[in-house]
């Protein structure tokens, strides 16, 4: 292997790292199997990490044409890539679990607390209404309440 040539493993490693992160947001988050556990992205990161290690070895080889510059560039690219991977893993596996405990949420068998809130047209809607008002002519058998974080 000629270490003086263009250090492609390093740069492909960087590209794969970015691809691994952004593909999660753009593609895999929409597929339940890869959203709940992002195995595809972890696989991409694994390949990226291997390439980065090869790239680091190449970048630090003494036979390179401009050894100092090569070492600086290699270090920066590798550092950025590994920080990116670490941030991704942190947000997916640690940060997203930082939820406050909810012990007072209604349990199965309890009455759901009544409420009245405005819908998108500004009309007041109560839970009782939701449970009884017909949908396309037939009253609903049940109401699915989905609380979500909001579109921000």
């Amino acid at each position, binding site marked *: 292997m000629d270490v003086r040539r263009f250090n492609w493993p390093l740069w492909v490693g960087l590209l794969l790292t970015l691809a691994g992160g952004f593909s999660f947001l753009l593609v895999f988050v929409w597929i339940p199997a890869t959203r709940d556990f992002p195995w595809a992205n972890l696989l991409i990161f694994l390949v990226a990490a291997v390439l980065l290690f090869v790239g680091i070895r190449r970048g630090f080889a003494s036979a390179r044409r401009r050894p100092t510059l090569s070492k600086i560039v290699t270090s920066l690219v590798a550092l950025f890539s590994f920080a990116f991977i670490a941030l991704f893993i942190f947000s997916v596996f640690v940060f997203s679990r930082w*939820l*406050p405990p909810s012990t007072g949420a209604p349990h199965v068998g309890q009455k*759901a*607390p009544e409420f009245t*809130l405005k819908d*998108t047209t500004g009309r007041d809607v109560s839970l*009782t209404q939701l449970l009884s008002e017909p949908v396309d002519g037939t009253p609903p058998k049940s109401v699915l309440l989905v609380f979500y974080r909001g*579109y921000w």
Partner: protein
Amino acid sequence: MEKSRDSLKAAGVRAVAISIDSPEESRKLAQEQGYTFTILSDPNAEVIQRYDLVHAGAGESGKDIARPAEFLIDSSGTVRWVNLTENYMVRARPEQVLEAAKSIK
């Protein structure tokens, strides 16, 4: 949720979404995404508080928002199925809801 609208409807389930977003923001979201289910606005997180689902300070500029949660409520107002996720990226699947809805007459 929108994708499973027909199967939910067939099971007699009315889907309702709740967040702190204002009616205007929710209307925009619904238009952009083509959502047809009811979206309710709880700007001061009062109902979210009543259901003990406040994730304090987690929203934009430290606002209190809801932690993700799903409740299936029968026509008598009784909770029949609950999903409180431990990880806000992991949500209930439509199949789980449909399974729970089957037992409600």
